[in-house]
């Protein structure tokens, strides 16, 4: 690829290599441009799925038909779920900010396999296009819910085959990205960056990537079996052909439970970046946080059965799965305690990214704690498949991962685009989001305990009050979100130029210009200490100029080769 003086001086946004204009983006091998292309696509789908969410809430405003018919509603929640899970939340932080920041944070010029990286973006787009095409072909938009439970998914006349295929392709995109990150982290860390000098965001990506590589193939096979079952009636899952519908649920959740950690661990990684920066001090319990990511990833493999407590699984396995589920709560709790402790005796600069993180800690704690109700056998049996579960997973997925996606956008916005946004508006927007969010989703817990099942187009009259409150909440929430994006968009066009290190961050991305040059670093830096040390420098940015390269601190051969 391009070398010479230009590549480490000109911003990646302006640099013109072999291809210019739009081709310079679509054919780019630069991890930063690929990250931005993911951002565009992911935001687009987020807005589509958010609109679907609003429409669902509108339908639930009154019992009976409000704006759509039952079969439409069923397709809308399926589409909302599929887009939010496979096109937004799984790729959001790793594919956008992981791609952008991981190489910079570990002192590399790019990921280990830049071409594979671009390929995985195309896989993502291919999956997305398949999902869109599935809406208008065959029997129309799938109506199975994002879980594709058999035998309904086998019998539905809608175009479930293609939607499943879309999820299958998206799975490969996820696997390829995971593989790329694992190799990048193993091979491309700058000299001196030992495992325990690595920032916590790369640590989180490392744990996530392993889950992506090891768990995603299972969903691939499972979805492929559904397609075969629909096309040829092979009878693996269909009871009327001798198959077992429960087997499907096991396979589905063996992937999809770890997948919730694919969603949340990267978000936790960013929390661990933002807190030390705005606290002006080292994170509390660095090693515990790093290790607990791996702990969550490991135990997370063993708890899938908690989604099946009423499916007819044996009593013994229900008890074991319940116990294991409670254990996975522990490393998560440890993280939350460490984050709060980081603020102790800090010198806190209050600003938008930090505010989003505080909102995250509050909302995500509610999500996690309501998870305990779902982990306990007797209470789960009552509230599973009700709005309680819908409330719980919006609190953890949207309140956890979604809000952290917003925090991440604010934290790294100056670095990615080289512009500053209005702090004041960002903070007002966040306040509106917090209020709207709780108004929208907190009633779900009450509805659920009252016995309102999920995926219901219509409801009994006793539930209406809470449904109305929730729908009004959805309007508040969306106003906040639109306001927030408006602020960022305005900054993108008219914002003042961002300095290299607006927040006083200590990790490597704050030591390169905003926006970073194509090759990130003039010279590969040398690392001499931990990532969040505020009172002394722990990176040597120009080891060559300072004579270090000649002293046996070699630029690793891998780093050169990879680029």
């Amino acid at each position, binding site marked *: 690829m391009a070398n010479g003086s230009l590549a480490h001086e000109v911003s990646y946004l302006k640099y013109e290599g072999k291809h210019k204009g739009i081709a310079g983006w679509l054919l780019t091998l630069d991890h930063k441009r690929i990250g931005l292309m993911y951002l565009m696509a992911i935001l687009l789908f987020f807005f589509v799925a958010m609109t679907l969410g609003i429409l669902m809430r509108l339908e639930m405003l009154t019992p009976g038909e409000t704006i759509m*018919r*039952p079969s439409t509603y069923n397709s809308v929640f399926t589409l909302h779920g599929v887009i939010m899970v496979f096109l937004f939340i799984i790729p959001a932080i790793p594919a956008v900010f992981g791609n952008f920041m991981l190489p910079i944070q570990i002192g590399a010029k790019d990921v280990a396999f830049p071409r594979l990286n671009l390929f995985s973006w195309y896989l993502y787009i291919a999956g997305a296009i398949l999902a869109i095409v599935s809406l208008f072909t065959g029997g129309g938009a799938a109506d*199975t819910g994002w879980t594709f*439970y058999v035998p*309904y998914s086998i019998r*539905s*006349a809608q175009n479930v085959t293609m939607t499943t295929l879309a999820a299958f392709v998206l799975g490969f995109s996820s696997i390829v990205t995971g593989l790329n990150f694992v190799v990048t982290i193993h091979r491309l860390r700058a000299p001196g960056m030992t495992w325990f000098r690595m920032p916590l965001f790369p640590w989180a990506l490392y744990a996530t990537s392993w889950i992506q590589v090891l768990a995603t193939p299972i969903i691939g096979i499972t979805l492929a079996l559904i397609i075969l079952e629909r096309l040829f009636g092979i009878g693996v899952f269909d*009871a*009327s052909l001798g198959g077992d*519908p429960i087997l499907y649920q096991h396979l589905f959740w063996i992937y999809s439970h770890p997948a919730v950690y694919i969603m949340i661990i990267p978000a936790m990684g960013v929390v661990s970046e933002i807190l030390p920066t705005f606290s*002006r*001090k*080292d*994170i*509390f319990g*660095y090693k515990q946080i790093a290790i607990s990511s791996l702990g969550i990833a490991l135990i997370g493999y063993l708890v899938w059965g908690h989604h099946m407590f*009423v*499916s007819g699984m044996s*009593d013994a396995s229900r008890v074991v799965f*319940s116990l294991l589920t*409670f254990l996975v*709560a*522990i490393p998560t709790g*440890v993280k939350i*305690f460490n984050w*709060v*402790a980081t*603020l*102790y*005796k*800090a*010198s*806190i*600069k*209050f600003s938008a990214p930090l505010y989003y993180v*505080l909102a995250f800690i*509050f909302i995500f*704690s*509610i999500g996690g704690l309501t998870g*305990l*109700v779902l*982990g*306990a*056998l*007797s*209470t*789960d049996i009552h509230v*599973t*498949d*009700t709005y309680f579960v819908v409330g719980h997973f919006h609190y953890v997925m949207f309140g956890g991962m979604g809000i952290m996606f917003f925090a991440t956008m604010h934290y790294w916005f100056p670095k990615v685009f080289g512009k500053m946004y209005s702090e004041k508006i960002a903070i007002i927007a966040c306040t509106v989001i917090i209020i709207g969010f709780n108004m929208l989703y907190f009633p779900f817990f009450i509805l659920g*305990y009252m*016995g309102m*099942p*999920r*995926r219901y*187009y*219509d*409801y*009994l009259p006793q539930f209406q009050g809470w449904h109305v409150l929730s729908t009004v909440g959805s309007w508040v929430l969306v106003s906040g979100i639109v306001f927030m994006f408006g602020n960022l968009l305005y900054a993108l066009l008219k914002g003042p130029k961002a300095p290299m290190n607006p927040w006083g961050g200590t990790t490597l991305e704050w030591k390169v210009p905003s926006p970073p040059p194509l090759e990130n670093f003039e010279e590969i830096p040398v690392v001499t200490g931990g990532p969040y040390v*505020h009172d002394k420098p722990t990176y040597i940015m120009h080891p060559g100029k300072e004579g270090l390269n000649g002293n046996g601190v070699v630029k690793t051969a891998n780093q050169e080769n990879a680029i």
Partner: protein
Amino acid sequence: MNQITELVDNSFIFTVTISVILLVGITAAMIYFVFRYSEKNNPKPDQSITGSTTLEILWTVVPVLLVLAMFFYGYEGFREMRNIPPNAMLVKVTGKMWFWHFEYENKKTSDTVLVLPAGKDVRFELQSVDVIHSFYVPAFRVKEDCVPGRTNHLWFHTSTEGVYDIECAEYCGMNHSYMLGKVKILPEKEFLEWVNKVDTVKKSDSVSAPPTGNVKTDSTNNSQVKTDSSKTTQVKTDSTKSPVKKPDSLKVNRKDSIKKNK
């Protein structure tokens, strides 16, 4: 009071109480620190604080104990749910798109309305003839899926007379939200009268064997929906006549009014 309901509610209250304490603690500490240690109030951060083994152990061990207690509470209620009294009366429940079918020990059948005697233990055998449904009676805090090809179990004690909702809790297609029913708990005498009355509803009308292959309902061949099992039918849902057409099914009218729109 129904024992299962009590155990579930107690376990819920226990978990929620601890959760609220933790949530308030975490949030209060967080907000307090943000003000107390702001740039203004504390210009020099204490760089020496990077962790504490004592605290790490403390906030690992205490939560472990708490969650073990929650686990145990949940398990206790569950044991009761699975501990089916040996002399409980039996009702067979069959889920079918989109209504409930009940069969009593004396072969008496009923759709949608589940009539039970008060003060009795009742055991249910749950089955499905098409896709997965879930038999859910919120008032009794019990739920279990009806899975095609297997039989699941459930029981509860009918403590007090009254009418309670039955809902399908596992998504099963277009009219999932209309797959409702009622538990009607009568004094034992009235129940016996009801259950021993000669059945006017023929069982074969409502529940047929599971059809094979891709069974989908299609607007063009309504008549095939209830046809014999060997035929592969295409069922597209919106315009299908619902298979429920019984005077005693509560939700039928509503369903019909929706269908008329198309």
